[in-house]
């Protein structure tokens, strides 16, 4: 497998890709039902609403109720999908997610869009930096963070075929096509770029930056393996074991607090497996982060390609 080049790649709006994928699944499955908390249009569901008004329910801004309604609908055989700004479908209605969907084991798909700090200028109320941590704590919930447009499409397809609760997060800014080989399978990650000095394990829309960082590192004589992990929970522990055995250093990348998310999950896996590999976590600091233009914010926190490359080189220097 050769390195994936990021030059001249097509950029796509993750929300539009998501909405189109839901519509494609809904064409095949009449039970798929879309719920909106004044959020459907911004979640790419405009076409669905036009084509299937009887399967589209608008509630206005009442996310707690929508989660409960989703659960009730699912008990009658419907497959509800509810997409809104990430903190408002995870942190705000957490107890409804936990009890009505998790504990009741209902086949409901919750999607947090504009996740991480992608509503960068809107401040911490609109950032979602704990959603991996809190959703994975609900037994039986699968947590997905697809990494590029095609993977969003595949993940939507897989989430509807999966019988059980799913939380998926997608971002806001256009994302590049990473030409991830596939096929997508829940619970499986993939090596996207070979390397021998360090494994960079990434998820969600940061994987493009992780690949670009690996290319920068290559120029500095550091061979970085890039592993894409679109399923945050349950983690692909076999792949992490392989990274731990082969590179000895794992650096995790996520648009999430450095605690509680992918990095923590990878650390648990390495520790539980008894591996001596070192795990370093990159993400947002556990504070109410700054606001500002997205790219500048990510660069400020060292989560652009250059920042990631700098951190990885630094970690290698320390070992």
């Amino acid at each position, binding site marked *: 497998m050769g390195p994936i080049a990021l030059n001249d790649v097509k950029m796509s709006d993750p929300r539009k890709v998501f909405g189109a994928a839901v519509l494609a699944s809904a064409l095949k499955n009449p039970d798929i039902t879309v719920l909106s908390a004044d959020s459907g249009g911004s979640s790419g569901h405009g076409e669905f609403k036009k084509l299937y008004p009887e399967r589209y329910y608008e509630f206005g801004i*009442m996310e707690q*109720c929508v989660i409960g309604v989703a659960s*009730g609908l699912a008990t*009658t055989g419907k497959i509800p999908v509810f997409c809104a700004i990430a903190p408002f479908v995870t942190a705000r209605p957490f107890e409804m997610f936990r009890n*009505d969907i998790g504990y009741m084991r209902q086949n409901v798909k919750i999607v947090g869009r504009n996740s991480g700090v992608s509503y960068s200028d809107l401040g911490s109320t609109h950032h979602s930096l704990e959603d991996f941590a809190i959703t994975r704590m609900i037994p039986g919930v699968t947590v997905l963070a697809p990494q590029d447009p095609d993977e969003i499409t595949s993940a939507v397809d897989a989430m509807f075929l999966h019988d059980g609760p799913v939380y998926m997060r997608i971002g806001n800014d256009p994302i590049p096509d990473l030409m991830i080989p596939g096929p997508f399978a829940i619970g499986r990650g993939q090596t996207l770029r070979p390397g021998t000095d360090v494994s960079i394990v990434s998820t969600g829309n940061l994987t493009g930056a992780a690949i670009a960082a690996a290319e920068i590192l290559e120029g500095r004589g550091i061979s970085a393996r890039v592993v894409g992990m679109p399923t945050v929970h349950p983690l692909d522990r076999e792949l992490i074991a392989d990274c731990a055995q082969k590179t000895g250093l794992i650096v995790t990348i996520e648009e999430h607090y450095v605690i509680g998310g992918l990095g923590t999950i990878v650390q648990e896996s390495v520790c539980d497996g008894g591996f001596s590999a070192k795990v370093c976590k990159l993400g947002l600091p556990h504070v109410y982060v700054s606001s500002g233009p997205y790219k500048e914010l990510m660069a400020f926190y060292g989560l652009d390609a250059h920042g990631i490359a700098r951190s990885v080189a630094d970690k290698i220097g320390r070992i």
Partner: protein
Amino acid sequence: MSDAIKRLECRAAKCRRNILRMIRAGGAGHMGGAMSCMDIVTALYFYALYVDPLDPKKNDRDRFVLSAGHKCMAQYAALAERGFFDESLLDTYGALGTKLPGHPDMHKLPGIEANTGALGHGLAISVGMALGLRASGLKSRVFTVLGDGELPEGSNWEAVSAASHYKLSNLTAFVDVNGLQISGSTASVMNMEPIDARFEAFGWAVATIDGNDMGEIVRTLDSLPLATERPSAIIARTVKGKGLAFAEGNAAYHYWKPKEEELAEAEAELDRAIRLKEAV
């Protein structure tokens, strides 16, 4: 009083006796609210609900969601009496691994439709059920029992709005207004009166009844839906601890851990009540 009403009252007495059976097994339980809503829950399971104990997941069944999940002994009592499971299961209440936990679990016991207990959840789940059943072309109805003590939960009012917006005439919510909660009277803890006017203002059709009067409960069930294209709210004024003279209207019996003499006295009182009702 018709024979049908007398039979329902006798059932309610037997269900109340089942509650004591669970308390004897487990040593304690949320007795006060279970007793206050027992007549309503009895009328639902023995008069109103289209359910089949031999096929509890039947597609077109009516749904009953006990939003005030801590009153689950009332539901367990009625389900056992209705034949959803062997009544010997009542003796496992409070035991390790019981199918009758202190708040209901739909995956453990046939006839339970939702995992309630955290207050302010049941009505939204019921709205989803009512929407889903209607969208599936089923005539099934959804019944919910809320406690008056859970009305301050804001999530209820989100669901009250949604039910009205979607004109869910297949949804009926009983509010078991026993007027008492752990810290005292509901009016002093957080006054939600006038409950009927609040539901009306949100677009529901409302009836106020004596929720411990079987005849009135049945007449109200016969008149459902109270209006076309509107959900129905039945504000049921009840007595906490109903059926046990020493406990009636006393918030201290919200959660009851009886001494043996108290429990024996309660059992004797309900046994007498059953004998009396069987005699008439």
